[in-house]
Every structure is written in structure tokens, then in C-alpha cells.
């Protein structure tokens, strides 16, 4: 009978190796391996004059894309991770946030270094 060995060892190129079980060091701040800003079609734009720093946007943002810069005393938006869900716009108590189309901005949406 012919006896076939099916395969013994796959060869994986260096750039495609992944850690065992896909476990990676926990991100200290941002998971740069998965930028989600390019999912966005609209973005929240803040009017700092109207903002009373109530932190509603920070509380309701599901992606932690708003934080308070305590020195400058203003809210800072993270373009790399905001998916444009606009919950912050709906939850803002003083109407200082507006939704604007991505195409109105130079450069448009955030692009990945390597497009899919």
C-alpha cells in the first residue's frame, strides 16, 4: 500500500507569526494594533466656548475617545479610535457638540497605514 504522510510542519513566515493562543501584552493606554477611527462617517465637533466640562461625553463614550486635559481645562477628542457613534452629541447637556460629515475635513477619515 502507498503510505502518505499528510503534513508534519507548517512553515510560517516571520511577519505572520502570532503569539501562542494570540495572547498579547495588555495595552497600557491604546491598542494601536486595532485602530477603529476609519469606521466613522461623521465625527463630533466641540465648541469649547459652550462646554462646561460636565464630562457627560467622557462618561457615555463606549470607546474612551474623550478625556479631560486638566492643564488646558478642555475636553480632548481621540480621532484614531472614535467610531462616530455620536452618543456624546446626544448626551451633551449644553449642546456644545455637533455632528459633522467626515468629508468636510481635510484628509477625511483616519486611514490605516495598510489599507484592507
Amino acid at each position, binding site marked *: 500500500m502507498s*503510505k502518505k504522510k499528510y503534513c508534519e510542519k507548517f512553515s510560517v513566515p516571520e511577519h505572520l507569526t*502570532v503569539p*501562542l493562543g*494570540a495572547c*498579547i501584552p495588555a495595552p497600557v493606554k491604546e491598542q494601536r494594533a486595532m485602530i477603529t477611527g476609519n469606521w466613522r462617517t461623521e465625527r463630533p465637533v466641540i465648541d469649547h466656548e459652550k462646554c462646561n466640562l460636565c464630562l457627560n461625553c467622557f462618561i457615555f463614550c463606549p470607546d474612551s475617545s474623550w478625556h479631560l486635559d486638566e492643564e488646558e481645562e478642555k475636553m480632548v477628542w481621540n480621532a484614531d479610535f472614535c467610531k462616530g457613534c455620536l452618543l456624546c452629541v446626544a448626551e451633551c447637556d449644553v449642546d456644545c457638540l455637533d455632528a459633522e460629515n467626515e468629508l468636510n475635513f481635510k484628509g477625511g477619515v483616519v486611514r490605516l497605514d495598510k489599507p484592507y
Partner: protein
Amino acid sequence: MAKEMFLAGCSAAAYGAALARVEVITSFPIRPYTGIMMELSKLVANGELDAEFVHGEGEHAQVAIAYGAAAAGARAYTGSSGVGVTYAMECYSPASGGRLPCQMAIADRALDPPGDFGSEHTDVMSCRDQGWIMGWAETPQEVLDNTIIYYRIGEDPRVLLPQFCCQDGYFVSHIPGKVVMPEQSQVDEFLPPYKHPHALDPTKPISHGPQIYPDQGPAINLQRAQAFLDTPAVIEEVIEDFNKIFGRDYKPFLDEYRTDDADFVFFIQGGHARTARFAVNHLREKGVKAGMVKLRFVRPFPTEAVAETLSKFKAVGCVENSTSYGGAMKGGNLIHEVRSALYDVDNPPAVTSFMSGLGGEVVSLEEFYSMAKVLAEAAKTGKVEQYVYWVGFDKGV
């Protein structure tokens, strides 16, 4: 003198888990596997076993808890039957992809409809592509031994995969048999404490199951495929070691019964192999050259061993205890694997399959005799008339 007990499969599985010193047990009731958790909860309540006993809110939660426990560095044990097995389906791939070797004890139960308490392998066979090690036991003794053996295989650094440790519901899980109880010192020698290369540790924070780029997806799948390529050698090593320490005589993949000069064999897994042994004896008394080959692992499927062993015979009948509706052979699952394994063999045997024992029906001696008639004819002509026979419904069986 080793201690002997009279145990049903459920109790045997529980004692096996206790001897393996499981640290986290997670339960949810469903017949017939519930007996395992009843026995284990007693052992924990009586202070005979030091383990966390967590009651999940369903089977999905059960496997998720076992996943978390294994990630935290504990030897985790859970289990289910029938629709409970399929309800937890989402959690199987994360556990194998995350390379977390928890164990799921199974006592098979037919899937709905209708509500059927009988045994049938379709519940776990439906999960055979989820990256778990998988195999069936024939007796309560084999259930206890497999429980310990599977942990050793799954926790090997070359493997690191979760395991389905299966027994037929009722036929094995509820019918007692004689079980030789291993000494705790033997089990401790065979099965070292569980150590995972990246168990959760607050001083070295890591992410389990993070989002990845699509081009990393194939690489992760390949990693699991590689683990399964490496597993057969580990199984052979582990079984040899087990036989040496416990004085048993297990074959790693295929258990052959009276096959020396057999014309045809029943290819079978699980509890019905016991009936097959009696059928083979009776057929031999009548001069029919029948034999039996019992499959001990479905995953990893022992392709080379099956090709080498089954090519010795003129005809092979896969006794199917699970369904693959609309599959290539229109019947069960084993025949797909067997025919694939035999494709490159010179002069392959005639291979057919028999749907029997579905929904908890007994595969009776009479059914084996009618299968033998079909197989004897196939051995004579070298051809099979049909790929699948529904025993009791089809012509000729």
C-alpha cells in the same frame, strides 16, 4: 491490591476528575451527564476534594467559566449532554484558539426534536471542527482512565488544547461496571500540576482574545492546526506512560478485536463496541470471519493508523451513531473520515456505513448480524451496494 469499585460512567468520570485534582468545577444540570456533577458536588461538600464548585446559569456560562479558570491557571472541569453541548457552541473555538486546556465531560444525548433522553453522538460530533481533542470511552473504566489521560495530553506544552471526554449516555454513563481505582500517588506521578505558559498574572498584564488584523487570522488557525499535527505523537507517548504506571493495555488510537484473519470489520466508537465484541464472538462461532476496530480518538483523527489497519480487510462497515444530513455519504460522519483516509491506499476495502442506535436505541446483536450479512457480501464481491444503510428501515438490514 488495587481497590475495585462498581461504578457507572458518571461516577467514574467524577472519580477521574477528583483523582486529577481538578481545581475549578462548573455545572449546569441536564440528563444524563448530571450524575457526574452530583458525585463531584458530594465529594466537594464532604471535604474529600478541594475545588471551587461554580454553578453556571447555563452551558454557555459553564464553558466560559472553565475558559476563565484555565486562563487563570486552574485545572478546570465542566460537562454537558445533548442540547447543552450545542448551546455552549460559541465558547469552544475561543478555548481552543486561546490554547486553554480545560476538559468537558460528555454523556451523549440525542438532540431535539423531539425531547429524547436517549444517547446519540450527534451532539459532540457537531463540535468536531472546533479544535478540541475528542474521543469516546467504551466502559466506566475507560471513562475514568480517559479523564486522567486527556488532561495529560491537553496540558502538554506541545498540545495545549481543551478536550471533550465522551461516553455514551445511559449505555455507559448509567450502567455500572467494575472499575479498578488508581492510587492517588500513581495519578500524581502521571499527571503533574497544571502550568500554563501565560496564566493570568497581575504583575504581567496580558490580553486574551484581543482584536487582530485579518492577516493574523490564518496564522492563529494555522497554530491550532500545527498543534493537532503534533498531538498524535504526544498521545502515543502518554498512552505508553499510562500503561506502564497503571498496568493497563490501551492502544493509542485503534483497539482491534479478533481481526487477525478477519474478512470484514465493524468500525465503531463508544459504548456499542461492547455489543460488537459479543456479536463478533457469536459470528466467529458460526465460522464468519468478523472483527471489530474501535476508534479511540475522533480528533485528532488517526489517518495513517486507519489507512494502515483497515486496508488489511476486504470490507469495512462504519457503525454510525451520529448524523450528517446531506453529507457526501448521506448518512453519518465516520464514513467520511474513513473513506478519505483510505483514498490513497492500494486495493482499499469496500466501505459502507450503518445508521443505528440513533435517539438512544440499542444497537442489538440482531442488528450487528444483519450488518454482518451486508459486509460478508461486500467482502465477497469487493463492492458495496449502498454507502449507507438505515438499520431496521433499509432493504437487507
